[in-house]
């Protein structure tokens, strides 16, 4: 059943350690009545994730040191689902694949995950006095880590789907962690259901891909096999039904679009982004881990992992790029007017994810992965910093009640500023390099309208700087707007909160040099092959033809990006530092546009009105009350019953009058009929 251990078996340890911890917590919570001591919970949970991080490092090391030069490690644990023989054969194994792409993801997940686990110990300690709740939180967190690791380590689409759904589930559980509040529970299930819509696309893509591979006699769901056999189906087309316009579509485009629907759901892109801002109802470490650093990047990971598919599906790639670009600017615009510190960060996440898709759609898969990693660091830093602020202010999240915090929480202020500078693209920090790569990729790509894409990206970068500095200024500078009794008790949180922030800040600053674009390597540092991340990832990521840019162009592009950032910063400085009264006046003057922004363009309300309400109403009024109760049960079934009863009461009852002579009549009529027939 379970395949024996080999030197590659370290791979299975990476996801299984968090699973073991989660299972332990689950059993203790569900079946054993005695509460587990808090220290044990912490030791097991954090220990498991740290051990998983160590295992990831070991695996990473052995991947680099791999003797035969191949860039993969595969650990096939056991055969999960096997069905069919011959050309229909389908088999999905629990098998883990470590290649450069998944190793980067694994390191980010376990690394950032460990830090957030440690942070959570303090964060949840302050928050939750109930030991069971504490343990439950870590149970979910471990389960999430497990699912996320499965997602990135899976060597086939089905196992990846396991992780894919698993992270959705954990997101549901963790958003609704404080379930006594109806709103949290609502947000949790909203996240799960919107994710499921994405999963629908994922499944469709999977089935479509598999069945087209069956058609060419090479059924497989493993990434490597798909990649190997993809050439067989790149020419295949799909007849589109008349009502969709007819004609023939390139099959790979359809498959890629289906997968992209999955990615859109998971990575909160237009039009399925609505769950992510609401997901901020969960505890802040959860927002940091799931809704900033890891889970939401799963969609980007999927597109990169299936890069070989998107590379041959130009139309799908274009859709990806445009969706990303539009989401980026759309979310950035909304972020400008938000007043909840976490909501601003949430929309910023949506926007940054849009960047990643922009890169992936333009064929800049390395840029996308680079940004995934650097975003994981700086966004986790920002979220955890925000959590620190929230703790300091005793669970106050509204920006309008903050201000002037830099005096009371100097350390948080410093790390937060680093995060803001990074995301705003301050030259030399990791965000600068990764965002620059994306913009370069957009500029250099050959897809139609790529200059527009670049333009949108650039504008978004300016917006990003604006709203992030707005956030920073409103939080840390100016006069404190907190209520008096809170103002008395503003304290910087303890070491367990701050130290993970330091670590993240370090990576936010210096991670960029792991993926230093060659232009900076040549110009500033004089290093050959400076982009070690890209070189490392290159063997596994698909290459899409693009225009070659010379160094001058690239420097100009960088200059443009810096300019955009400076302009954004300048506006923020002007509005929120120099003329703090101005924003309010503008808001008052432009009431309708401002309201539109504050209410997030009424997208939630529109969805509710367009999809949710009609669906419930139709199901209830039409399907249930009319079709089920009235038509099927009432008219058809009840009709037959009534017909039978009516025949009895109205017709046959008269034959059963009780009058003997009537009976005799029928008897004789029968006899006469028989005689008649016999004498005929």
């Amino acid at each position, binding site marked *: 059943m379970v395949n024996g251990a080999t030197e590659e078996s370290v791979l299975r340890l990476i996801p299984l350690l968090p699973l073991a911890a989660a299972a332990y917590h689950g059993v203790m919570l569900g079946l054993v009545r005695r509460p587990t001591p808090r220290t044990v919970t912490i030791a097991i949970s954090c220990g498991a994730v740290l051990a998983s991080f160590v295992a990831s490092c070991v695996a990473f090391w052995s991947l680099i040191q791999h003797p035969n030069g191949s860039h993969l490690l595969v650990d096939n644990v056991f055969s999960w689902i096997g069905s069919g023989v011959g050309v229909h054969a389908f088999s999905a194994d629990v098998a883990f694949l470590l290649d450069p792409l998944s190793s980067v993801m694994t390191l980010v997940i376990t690394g950032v995950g460990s830090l957030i686990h440690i942070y959570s110990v303090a964060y949840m300690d302050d928050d939750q006095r109930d030991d069971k709740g504490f343990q439950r939180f870590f149970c979910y967190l471990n389960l999430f880590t497990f699912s996320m690791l499965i997602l990135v380590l899976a060597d086939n689409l089905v196992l990846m789907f396991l992780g894919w759904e698993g992270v959705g589930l954990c997101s549901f559980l963790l958003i609704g962690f404080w379930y006594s*509040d109806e709103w949290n*529970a609502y947000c949790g299930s909203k996240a799960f259901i919107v994710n499921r819509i994405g999963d629908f696309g994922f499944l469709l893509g999977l089935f479509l891909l598999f069945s087209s591979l069956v058609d060419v006699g090479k059924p497989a769901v493993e990434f490597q096999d798909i990649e190997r056999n993809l050439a067989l189906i790149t020419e295949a087309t799909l007849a589109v039904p008349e009502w969709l316009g007819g004609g023939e579509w390139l099959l790979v485009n359809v498959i890629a679009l289906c997968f992209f629907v999955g990615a859109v759901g998971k990575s909160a892109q237009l039009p399925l982004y609505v769950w992510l801002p609401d997901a901020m109802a969960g505890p802040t470490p959860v927002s940091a881990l799931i809704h900033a650093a890891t889970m939401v990047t799963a969609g980007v990971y999927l597109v990169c992992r299936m890069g070989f598919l998107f590379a041959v599906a130009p139309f799908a790639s274009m859709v990806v790029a445009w969706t990303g670009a539009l989401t980026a600017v759309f979310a950035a615009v909304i972020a400008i007017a938000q007043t909840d510190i976490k909501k601003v960060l949430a929309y910023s996440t949506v926007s940054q994810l849009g960047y990643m898709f922009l890169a992936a759609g333009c064929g800049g898969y390395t840029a996308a992965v680079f940004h995934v990693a650097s975003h994981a660091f700086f966004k986790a830093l920002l979220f955890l910093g925000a959590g620190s602020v929230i703790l300091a202010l005793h669970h106050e999240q509204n920006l309008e009640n903050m201000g002037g915090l830099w005096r009371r929480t100097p350390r948080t202020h410093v790390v937060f500023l680093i995060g803001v500078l990074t995301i705003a693209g301050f030259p030399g920090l990791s965000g600068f390099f990764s965002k620059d790569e994306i913009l370069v990729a957009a500029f250099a790509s050959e897809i139609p309208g790529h200059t527009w894409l670049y333009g949108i990206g650039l504008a978004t970068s300016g917006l990003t700087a604006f709203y992030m500095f707005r956030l920073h200024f409103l939080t840390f500078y100016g006069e404190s707007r907190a209520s008096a009794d809170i103002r008395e008790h503003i304290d910087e949180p303890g070491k367990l909160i701050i130290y993970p922030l330091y670590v993240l800040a370090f990576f936010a600053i210096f991670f960029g040099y792991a993926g230093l674009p060659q232009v900076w390597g040549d110009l500033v540092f004089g290093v050959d092959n400076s982009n070690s991340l890209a070189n490392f990832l290159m063997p596994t990521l698909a290459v899409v033809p693009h225009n070659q840019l010379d160094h001058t162009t690239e420097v100009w592009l960088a200059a443009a990006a810096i300019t955009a950032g400076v302009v954004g910063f300048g506006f923020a400085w002007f509005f929120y530092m120099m003329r703090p009264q101005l924003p309010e006046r503008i808001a008052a003057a432009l009431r309708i546009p401002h309201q539109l922004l504050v209410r997030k363009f009424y997208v939630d309300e529109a969805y509710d009105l367009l999809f949710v309400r009609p669906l419930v109403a139709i199901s209830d009024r039409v399907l249930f009350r009319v079709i089920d109760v009235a038509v099927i049960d009432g008219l058809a079934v009840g009709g037959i019953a009534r017909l039978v009863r009516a025949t009895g009461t109205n017709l046959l009852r008269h034959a059963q009058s009780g009058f003997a002579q009537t009976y005799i009549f029928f008897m004789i009529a029968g006899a006469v009929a028989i005689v008649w027939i016999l004498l005929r």
Partner: protein
Amino acid sequence: MGPIEPFLLSFVTFFPLLAGVGLLLIAALASWIGTKGLPDSLWKSVGLASTLATFGVSVRLFVEFDATRTGFQFVEHLSWIPEYGVNYFVGIDGISLLMVMLTTFLVPIVFIASWDDIRESIPTFVFFMLFLETGMLGAFVSLNVFQFYLFFEVMLIPMYFIIGIWGGPRRIYAAVKFFLFTMFGSLFMLVAVLVTYLLHFEQFGALQFDLVSTTGESKALLDTVIPLSGQIVDGEPVVWWKTQTWLFAAFGLAFAIKVPMFPFHTWLPDAHVEAPTAGSVVLAGVLLKMGTYGFVRFAIPLFPVAALEFTPIILALSVVGILYGSLVAMVQTDIKRLVAYSSVAHLGFVMLGMFALNEQGLNGSVLQMVNHGVSTGALFLLVGMLYERRHTRLISDFGGIAKPMPVYAAFFGLVTLSSIGLPMLNGFVGEFLILMGGFLAHPPSAAVATFGVVLAAVYMLWMYRRVMFGPVTNPENRSLIDLGLREKLVMVAMAVPILWLGIYPNTFLLRIQPSVIELLHQVEVRTALTTLPSTEDVALLAAADTAADPAADPNREPQP
């Protein structure tokens, strides 16, 4: 267990009934010698013990089952009414093995779960449950169509009483509705069985109800050529009479009602809502499988060409059932009714996979039968536990239950997730294979059905959220007690297959696989056998029914 070795299957089938009858006799004896019969607790414990013993023996069946062989195993064949070809003929392949396991697994669980739930007429209840178990097992192991029909009908009796005696306020209505619906369909099936039987007689000159032959020489119903069309009257074929089509329709109606497929489903919510927990669990867990099992075992192999003809209709009904069941489930106010409608949706998946008629679809379909039995059974058990405490099933009466009953909420969550097909739990594997099989055969229907996965999440999670989460608004819910030891035991027992089927489904898939391949092979062979180009051909066949044995050569070319 030495002496029962050759009768292992009969033992599994009849042991519950024997235990029940034995208890009755002892009770009669006891009351005859002047005591007040047997104590209720004795009835319950003996009932539980005998079902557990049955489960134990069926585990042995499972272990000893040779997964590498096709065909039926543990076969027993005894003459019963040999003149009419009625035999006692039992045997199992991978498909029925799983159904038997599901049955023997669920019944003891039900006993434990309703230990305190059933308070009136306990001896009667125990007897009916044991009787029901034998009825269900008998139908799953029967290879003689007459015998199958017998068991198929016989299990209505105990179920009717279980709903009618221990049910809710509208129990009589529900019981009668359940009975009439099922009876209505199965009478059509009876006619079709007899027509098939007579066709067999016409072709081979022997009366035979056996589905498959026990020896190489003798012929059974599956060797009969069921003409596609053309009943011959006075040498002229009757145009409207399409034999195979009508026969399949008759079988299909009986099974579709039992499944239940979309327009025939309205008995299910009523029966589920009114039935006691035990009844609901067995009804959802096993009885509904009788319909899907009937399709796999009888309707499809006997009438393969008609099955293909009907595929578009059945697929359409399945897809409609999936979407419709989900949407209607979404707006239910009663938890049990919600679960009942979700059954309609789930069984839509089962039918979809089955009529994909390929390995993935059928494997998934059979697996999904088990999955549905386990998940929905567990859901009904959980609803029953809540009902025992609060005596209401309305969603609006609850809210925030997770606070007073965290363990309950955890198990409810697990089962909910299994029901919406989360990977690593059982529901996923079945649904996934079904959809994959469906996609290989009929992509559009499967694509629409895939959307049912989204809807499943919508209605289940919405219900879960309204029941479990939020503040505890109703003061009566504040003092609810969490699960006791007995209830935990039940739920842990249910969790085992949920996890096992999700993590390592190959244990079961390996056993299903050969049977599914055999079934597909049979469909192929019998399609070739019955695909006759025109009605004249049937006339030829009818004229030459004694001359040549049409079943002897399965690869016989259709005549020009």
